[in-house]
C-alpha cells in the first residue's frame, strides 16, 4: 500500500499486546473460578455442583495464559514485530467508530434510518463519492432490507420515529 509508506511507525509491539491479552484472559479465568467457588465446585448429594466443570475451565485459562506469557518473554520463538501501524490503526478506526455510533443509534432511530446514515456517511467520508450517488445507495440499501425483512420474511427489525410517522 503506497500511501502507508510514510506512516509506517508502529504504535505498540506485538509482545506487549501478547502479554496484555494473556493477562486479560487470565483475569477472566480468575472471574470464572471465583464464581464457580461461589456456586460450589465440589460434589453435592445428587452429583457435581454447578461450579464443578467451570472451575477447571477457569484453571485451564489461567495456566494457558501464563504459558503464553512465558513463551512471549523467554521462548525461543519470542514474539516480535509491531501489532499495528499508525496508518493501519487509522483505517481500522475509520470503520470501527462509525460502527459503534451506528449500533448506538439503532435503539433510538431504528435500524433503517441508522443504516442509511451509516452507509451514506461512510461513502461520503471514506469513499468521497458525489452526493447524488451517496443518497441513492444509502436510501436503496435500507429500502431493500425493509422489503426483504418486514414484507417477505415477516421478521420485524428495530424501528424508530420515521417508521411511526409513516404509519408502519
Amino acid at each position: 500500500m503506497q500511501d502507508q509508506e510514510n506512516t509506517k511507525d508502529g504504535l505498540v509491539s506485538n509482545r506487549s499486546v501478547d502479554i496484555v491479552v494473556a493477562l486479560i484472559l487470565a483475569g477472566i479465568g480468575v472471574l470464572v473460578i471465583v464464581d464457580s467457588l461461589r456456586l460450589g465446585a465440589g460434589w453435592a448429594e445428587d452429583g457435581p455442583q454447578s461450579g464443578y466443570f467451570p472451575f477447571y475451565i477457569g484453571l485451564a485459562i489461567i495456566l494457558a495464559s501464563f504459558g503464553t506469557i512465558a513463551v512471549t518473554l523467554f521462548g525461543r520463538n519470542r514474539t516480535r514485530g509491531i501489532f499495528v501501524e499508525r496508518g493501519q490503526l487509522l483505517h481500522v478506526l475509520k470503520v470501527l467508530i462509525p460502527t459503534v455510533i451506528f449500533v448506538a443509534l439503532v435503539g433510538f432511530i431504528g435500524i433503517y434510518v441508522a443504516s442509511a446514515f451509516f452507509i451514506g456517511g461512510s461513502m461520503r467520508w471514506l469513499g468521497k463519492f458525489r452526493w447524488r450517488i451517496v443518497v441513492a445507495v444509502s436510501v436503496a440499501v435500507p429500502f431493500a432490507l425493509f422489503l426483504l425483512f418486514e414484507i417477505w420474511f415477516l421478521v420485524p427489525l428495530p424501528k424508530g420515529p420515521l417508521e411511526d410517522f409513516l404509519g408502519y
Partner: protein
Amino acid sequence: MDALSSLIDGFGVLGDPMNIMYMFIGITLGVLIGVLPGLGGANGVAILLPLTFSMSPTSAIIMLSCIYWGALFGGAITSILFNIPGEPWSVATTFDGYPMAQQGRAGEALTGAFTSSFFGALIAVVILTFLAPLVADFALEFGPAELFAVQLLTFCSFVGMGKEPPFKIIASMMFGFALAAVGQDPTTGQLRMTFGWYELLRGFDFLIAVIGLFGIGEILLTMEEGLAFKGKTAKINPRIVLQTWAKLPKYWVTALRGSIVGCWMGITPGGATPASFMSYGLAKRMSKRGPNFGKGELEGVVAPETAAHAAGTSALLPMLTLGIPGSPTAAVLLGGLLIWGLQPGPLLFIEQPEFVWGLIASMYIGNVAGLIVVLTTVPLFAAILRIPFSIIAPVIVVICAVGAYTVNNALLDMSFMLVFGVIGYVFKKMNYPLAPLVLALVLGDMAESNFRNAMILSDGSLSIFWSNGLVGSICGLALVMLLWPVFSAGLRRLRGTTSQLPAQ
C-alpha cells in the same frame, strides 16, 4: 447396500421443486458470501439462519448447506483474481492462482479451482455416504463417558493439529467454554457468571459470537490493508473450460491426495484451512512440477482446492453422526439443527432418515449445481468485487447487525457482536485461533452435561474414562493429540532440524 437404497430415498426428497429452488438460491448466496470480505461460510450461515425458522428443517438445511458449498467455491474467485483470499481456506490458492491470473490465465486457474473443488467434495460425499451410517451405528452404543471422550478428542485435536501456538489454542478454547457456561446451568438451574446482569441469563449465543468474530473482525482486518481492490479481469468461456478440463486428468494423483488429506482433516476437526496448506505442501514436495509451484502452476491450484472442499464437506460427517462439528460452519449448522428441534447424533439416522438422507443427496446435486453456477457467473461476481470497499464495508456491517439482531430480537446482541468483532480482530492478529472458541461455545453445554453424567455414573471417579477399551483408547488418543506439540518439538530437537512447515 443399505446406504445406497437410503440415498435413493434421499434423492426422492429432492424431487420437491421447492427444494431444488432453495438449493440454487443457497449456492448463489453462498458464492456471494464467499466473494465478499467479512462474510464467510460460518457467519453467512449464522446471519441467514433466523430466516429459515419458518421453513421445514429439510428445506432449511439444504439451503444452508448449499450456502456453505457456495462459499467454498466463492473463496477461490477472490484468491485468483484479486490475490485476496475470500476465505481462510483459499489462502493457499493464491500462491499459484494469482500468478496464473497475472499471466492472463485467470480462466484456466478458475476452471481448475472449481473443478478440483467439485472433485474433492464428490470424494468426500461418497465417503460420507458409506461411512456415516457405520459411524452412527457404532456410536449408538456410546454412553456419556464415550461421548465426552470423543468431545475431548475433538478439542485435543485442535491442539495437536493447529498451527497456532498450543497455549493460545488452549486459551481460546477455554475462553469459549467459559462463555458457554454463562447463564443458567442446564442441570441445576442456578445462574452462573451473570454477576447480577439480567441480560446474561440467556448466556452468550454462539451465532452472535460467530457474526462478530468472523464478520466484524474480518472487516476490521481488511480495513487495515486500506480500501483498494485491484483485480485481474476474468475471461471464462466454454473453450477455456474444455481446454482446462483436458489438462486436469494428469493431476489425478494430486487431486486424490488432496481429497484424502481433506477428508481426514475434515472428519478430525483439523478443518479446511490446515488441510489446504498441508495438501499444497505435500504436492509441492512430491510432484515433479514442484519447483514451478508459486509461479503459476495449475497443479498448485488443484492441491489446496481439492483438500479445502473435501474437508469442508466431510466436516459434516462427525456433525451428523456424533453431534460434533468438524468446522465452525458445521458448528453453525449444528446450532440450526438444535433450534429446529433435531438432536444431531446417531439417533438422527434412525429417527429422521428423510432429513439425513435428503441432506446427503443434496450434497451430490448441490455440488453439481455449484459447479454450473460458478462457471457461468464468475464475471458477475468479479464485477461485485469492483464495488469500492467504502460501500461494501458499511453494507456488510449493516447485514451483520441485522443478523445479530434477528437471532433473539435483542438490541443488546448488536453490542455483543461489536465486542466479539474487536475480540476477533485482536485474536486474529495475535494468532489465537477462532475455530476452537466457536466450537467450545457450541459444544460447551453438551460436553459439560456428558462429563457430569459420566461423573454421576462413576461417583466422581475419573477412572470411568479408562474403564473399557473403547473409551480408554479414545482418551489415550486425545492425550496424544494434546501432547503432540511436545512430542514434535522433542523429535525436531533430536533430528536437529528446524520446522519444515512452510511459513505462513
